[in-house]
């Protein structure tokens, strides 16, 4: 796909390049992301193994703590957490892929392509959703095998998927913004740290009511708490609008900010 993006742009009568449709460019970048997964499976394996291992480790080690907080099965609490975290790992792949493209010069060729700039951001973001699909599905399957309750019905799984997809998009846009600015492997490490701390400084381990001191204060204002509430509601009880809107709003705001961060990073790179 690499040369087709650059060379297959149609020309008008005036000779001005219109380029491919931005969505077809994004689609090609998604295919490229998946091709990278196929060619380097070893780099993809940790993003599948880690969420599954964490799900097993957290529910095994901290199960008593969440049961004390009134959760029937530790899986009900930790499946949404690890689905969201598993989805966020795709951002690392986005960052590594972009750095690789920058080092090999392929990204310079993309910048010369006559297409909308946002297509270069939407492509990797959509690619991160594709990368997230397998770990999220696996975490949910392990959850069912571990006796996860689903009082909210199929909609409960839908909201887990919505939260995971939202965080995959936010994390990948953030990773792109950081990588455009730093242009080295440090961006991937910083992305990992940022995601890690945002997720763990929320209601990742126990409900707000069980937290003490500084963590309670931080988790209360951390938007990830709302996202996890959205994802968990159907596994802990009924689905209500009260537990839904906060998560959707948090995802929308984080997505807006991270997309702006990515676009401004791309512009600063071109300068």
């Amino acid at each position, binding site marked *: 796909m690499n040369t087709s993006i650059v060379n297959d742009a149609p020309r008008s009568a005036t000779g001005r390049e219109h380029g491919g449709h931005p969505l077809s460019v994004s689609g090609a970048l998604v295919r490229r992301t998946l091709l990278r997964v196929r060619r380097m499976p070893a780099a993809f394996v940790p993003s599948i193994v880690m969420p599954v291992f964490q799900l097993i480790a957290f529910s095994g080690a901290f199960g008593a703590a969440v049961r004390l907080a009134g959760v029937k099965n530790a899986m009900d609490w930790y499946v949404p957490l690890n689905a969201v975290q598993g989805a966020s790992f795709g951002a690392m792949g986005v960052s590594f892929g972009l750095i690789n493209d920058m080092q090999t010069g392929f990204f310079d060729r993309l910048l010369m392509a006559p297409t909308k700039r946002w297509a270069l951001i939407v492509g990797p973001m959509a690619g991160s959703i594709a990368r997230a699909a397998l770990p999220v599905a696996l975490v949910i399957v392990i959850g069912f095998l571990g006796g996860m309750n689903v009082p909210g019905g199929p909609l409960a799984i839908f909201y887990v998927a919505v939260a995971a997809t939202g965080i995959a998009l936010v994390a990948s846009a953030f990773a792109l913004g950081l990588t455009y600015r730093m242009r080295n492997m440090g961006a991937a490490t910083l992305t990992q740290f940022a995601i890690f701390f945002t997720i*763990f400084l929320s209601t990742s381990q126990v409900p707000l009511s*069980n937290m003490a001191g500084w963590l309670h204060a931080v988790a209360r204002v951390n938007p990830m708490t709302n996202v996890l509430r959205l994802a968990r509601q159907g596994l802990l009880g009924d689905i209500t609008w009260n537990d839904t809107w906060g998560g959707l709003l948090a995802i929308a705001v984080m997505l807006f900010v991270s997309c702006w961060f990515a676009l401004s990073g791309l512009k600063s790179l071109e300068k």
Partner: protein
Amino acid sequence: MTAATATATHVAPPRSFATAVHHTLRLTQRSVLGRLRQPAALAPSFIFPLFFAALGSASFQRMSKLPDFPASSFLNYTAAGAIVQGVLFAATSSAGDLATDIEQGFFERLLVSPVTRTAIVIGRLGSAMVVAITQVFVFLGIFLAFGARIETGVVGFIGLTVSGALLALAMSGLMSGIAIRSGSPEVVQGSFPMVFALLFLSSSFFPRQYMTGWYKTVASWNPMSHVVEGMQGFMNQPLDIDQFLRAWLIPLGIATVSIMFGLRALANRLAAQ
């Protein structure tokens, strides 16, 4: 490298014990300096254990009010786990440096020099012990500042320090063996999930008595559970011989096996050349 190796086979390493100790100390010093010059590589082994300890003590403090909880506070409980976590992370990272030395050719330069062969491995293990002792000091300093107490006093402090050093010896011996066998930093980093599993499938983060099912069985079989519980004993229980047996003898036993593994890997590498 072939010419260098050919030269190496003609250089007879000195046999004096004093010289071997001297070489080991010099290589330990070099390795420690190398670690200090890469704060970014060393920082995670300090930051993550402290972060998890802070997170755990804020999240699970209510658990420590239960009558059979083995510590007066979750902060007191989690101190030993933080030390073990830091030591394991640092030992893996130290072995990664050894693999980098092999990859970049410094290891071959050591082989052509008249350095005692065992000093090449033991020197690296020595630096892991120095880092581990520093970690114990830093971690306990921070924990004590935030209100933790060592129930066994100075003896417990020494017990924790020695245990941390022995654990570093055990893990870095194993990881150095992997580094020498593979000569690849990627392979060493790739074995990190094994360390992660060893840590999480144990009572490092949560007491075993609250675990259930197969997870509890695995944690009970995991030697890391017994090491960390021995160390938790120093922090939370009156002084007892059981603490020394678990926190000192288990890592010492593992260290003996892992050092043999490391030296064997070195011998095989030399023989292959």
